[in-house]
């Protein structure tokens, strides 16, 4: 056995109330949702904790609900359920596409969307689509609930806006008909791979002009980021390949990649520009516009 997980105390919650009781009474704990990140992190000693709170059995947080003007996803919904969901495929296909490319089937069967977000890896692949969809996260504690826009949730690598006694309850995605969105991911290989960079874009076009543009990238900054400069450049401008190509170069203002085992900073910068351009073109295609 190469890895040994240090001992910890194990607590299991069956309901959200039980989980909130546990996280408000314990110190030095980690929450286990699916555990596909946490168990490895315990093995490699990224974290050493005294207590683990297993929330994986809380059925009330495993759902995908279509309210018409918005889609709500429970924090403990498994990635494979999201990839397979007819609601997600119809209303927010960009999220289904991103999730389908995450990890492997074996991991998607266990890993949850809430775990992917709360683990706050700079390479979280659910983040770019949720950024461009303007998703809101509903956080809950014994004191009550609050909503945080996804772009304010990630603070730094492995750190989120969650307070110590708070849990992520659900992800709320407003439904905006008429928008085109796409997700492109570049890894070291084609499947079962972490992002070297991934980009999601969303466009809305009125009378051949960009009425709204949203661009988000992961793996190129301490947290997933919106590329505001590029977005602002395109808003109000005519839909053309020249404008898109110019805008894509501006993503360099909002990213600060590092060199690591997956890629060099220079390569990430170059690929961020290429993927942003390609994703914008693809998002336009989704609403029937060819450039």
């Amino acid at each position, binding site marked *: *056995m190469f890895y040994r997980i240090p001992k910890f105390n194990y607590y299991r919650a069956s309901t959200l109330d039980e989980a909130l009781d546990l996280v408000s009474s314990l110190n030095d704990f980690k929450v286990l949702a699916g555990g596909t990140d946490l168990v490895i992190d315990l093995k490699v000693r990224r974290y050493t904790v005294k207590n683990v709170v297993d929330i994986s059995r809380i059925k009330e947080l495993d759902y995908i609900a279509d309210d018409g003007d918005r889609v709500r996803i429970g924090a403990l919904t498994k990635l494979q359920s999201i990839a397979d969901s007819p609601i997600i495929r119809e209303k927010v296909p960009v999220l289904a596409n991103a999730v389908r490319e995450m990890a492997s*089937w074996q991991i998607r069967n266990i890993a949850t969307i809430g775990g992917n977000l709360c683990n706050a890896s700079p390479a979280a692949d659910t983040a770019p689509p949720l950024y461009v969809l303007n998703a809101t996260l509903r956080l809950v504690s014994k004191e009550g609930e609050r909503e945080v826009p996804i772009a304010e949730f990630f603070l730094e690598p492995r750190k989120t806006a969650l307070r110590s006694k708070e849990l992520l309850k659900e992800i709320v995605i407003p439904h905006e008909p008429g928008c085109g969105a796409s997700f492109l991911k570049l890894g070291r290989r084609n499947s079962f791979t972490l992002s070297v960079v991934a980009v999601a874009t969303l466009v809305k076009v009125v009378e051949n002009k960009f009425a709204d543009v949203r661009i988000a990238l992961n793996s190129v900054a301490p947290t997933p980021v919106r590329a505001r400069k590029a977005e602002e450049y395109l808003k109000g401008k005519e839909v053309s390949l020249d404008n898109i190509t110019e805008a894509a170069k501006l993503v360099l203002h909002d990213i600060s990649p590092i060199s690591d085992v997956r890629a060099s900073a220079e390569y990430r910068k170059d690929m961020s520009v290429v993927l942003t351009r390609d994703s914008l073109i693809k998002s336009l295609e989704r609403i029937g516009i060819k450039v």
Partner: protein
Amino acid sequence: MYVKVSFKLNGEDVTVDVEPNEILLDTLRLKLGIKSVKRGCERAECGACTVLLNGSPVYSCTLLTVQIDGKEVRTLEGIQDTPEVKALVSKFVEAGAVQCGFCTPGFIVTAYAMIKKGVEPTSENIKKALEGNICRCTGYKKIIDAVTKAIESVK
């Protein structure tokens, strides 16, 4: 701290006392004598430890045994007599999809789950389903050929 964990293993009820830090892979191999489940990378990358949890393939190296309390686990031992696995085994042999054999149980379990879920057997879908299993000998082509032929033969 020991926790009592009860689950169904290949159709039979089992109960084990485990420390919370014990992984399912160790419970299966060391306590329950299930040797088809292989210890490969131990960090959710290779697929050699794949088992079925309530019918879906998962890695047993990154599941704590306490997580499976009350659930149903099936390993290759529990499905080896099904027509799907018999077809997979014979097509793996015919196609030369087995060399050292270490990854084979994981591939068979994952491919079995794919057949049972009714995934349409296109080459693309087979590759997608098997993306979480690594083979360092065959180069995959023979494995994909074997799975394709197995699916055709059980139709």
